């Protein structure tokens, strides 16, 4: 599939050092469209939509915000903590608006598995179905999210 000028711009914004230090693609050799398509297939098999996952991530984040961004236990088994630092991040897909640099960590205390994501991650998943490339700092594996957070 030939990359459109918009695709090229988005890809450029996903490179290391443009919006974040390591970028959004990690060590993935696929283009972002293929990454999205592959993750959508995984989601389809799992019977969950990207919107449902984004809602779930936002649910934990909101619970943490309700606890003044301190730590809180949600649904008895999830330890949730959010760190907020100064500044905002724009969307690499060139959506207008910016996303606060907030980093939420959810730990499933039964399995010990943790996930850390930013406010931008929630937007990327909900609107673009983009979970980031393999080995990207904030890559979230759909399969793991569904197994651990639902």
């Amino acid at each position: 599939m030939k990359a459109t000028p918009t695709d090229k711009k988005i890809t450029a914004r996903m490179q290391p050092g443009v919006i974040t230090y390591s970028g959004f693609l990690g060590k993935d050799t696929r283009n972002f469209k293929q990454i999205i398509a592959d993750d959508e297939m995984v989601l389809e098999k799992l019977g969950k939509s990207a919107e449902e996952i984004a809602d779930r991530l936002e649910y934990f984040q909101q619970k943490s915000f309700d606890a003044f961004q301190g730590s809180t236990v949600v649904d008895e088994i999830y330890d949730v903590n959010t760190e907020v630092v100064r500044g905002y991040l724009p969307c690499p897909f060139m959506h207008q608006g910016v996303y606060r640099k907030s980093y939420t960590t959810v730990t499933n205390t039964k399995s010990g598995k943790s996930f850390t994501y930013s406010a931008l991650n929630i937007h990327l998943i909900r609107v673009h179905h983009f979970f980031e490339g393999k080995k990207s700092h904030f890559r979230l594996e759909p399969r793991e999210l569904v197994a651990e957070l639902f």
Partner: protein
Amino acid sequence: MLIRILQDIALMGGIGVILALILVLAQRWLSNYGEVTININGKRDLTVTGGETLLTSLGDKQIFIPSACGGRGTCGACKCQILDGGGPILPTEKPLLTKQEMGDNVRLACQVKVKSDIKIQIPDEIFNIRRFHSVIEEILDYTYDIKGVTFKLSEGQTIDFKAGQYVQLETKPYGKVKQKVMRAYSISSKPEIKDRIQLIVRLVPEGICTTWVHNQLKVGDEVDFTGPYGDFYLRDTDADIIFVAGGSGSAPIKSMLEHLREVGTKRKMTYFFGARTVKDLYLEEEMRDFEEYFDDFEYVPVLSHADETDNWQGKTGFVMPYFKEAIRDPKNTEAYLCGSPGMIAAVTKSLINDYGIAEEKIYYDSFG
């Protein structure tokens, strides 16, 4: 036949060159806006070459509007009111402006092209903002993810700021980072020192600037920054003070305390510092020194996740319940807060609703 083909090629080539020339000339003519005037606050006229953004045009004249994204239209920090000119609000600006701001014709200076005369309104404090060139003089490791960095200004340069204000650091390209970015950090040194400043920088996951500061900068490196910015500063009154900070939010509080030590004060002051664990505490010795020096100052660290191995004997949980011990007269108490928006919101709500502090006496620097 061959000659005919060559003639046609030459003719087409000639037409192509002429068209290209016309395009170049047209572009120069069409995009040449000549000299235009920026009128600031109805008082001052700047003559600039038309066609650049308002942010760049002002910067070229050493007037620095705050901007965290380097003019890419993503941070919304460079808002200023356009009184006349500037064209309509662009779609790129709308998501970062409120309805009220759009009604007042507040614009993003980085998106407004100065193509004709324009009248703008900006706070007078912005005229005090300068660009500084400095050399890194000292880097201290305060915690595992917080450093204190001292910037010595170039010979002859001095900075005037109020305790609590911030500067914008400009990174240089490094490693995978090809573009410079600008990021805001509160000054942690006292304003009485005018030839150097200290900043406290916490490492942010994937942060371009904080990674640069933590992993690249070393003593002797040259760094540029602009400032001072911000309306979070110590008010000159006799009111009691409650300081509340978390993480790198200690920076402006340290500056305020050092300033008060310099000028002298009898004010009752209590500083609540919220941290997760013992390893997140820093500037402890400095705070104990302040306790020794001031007549009525108490430093109260509060840990939200004290580890059993920390053997922590101090206060735990949220900071708010402990305010009761510090507030003797709500009507004569000011609060200075620096930290995450969640912490600021919770503390502000508590100060107003639980302790009766007037909202207008609560000053804060909310990260973001």
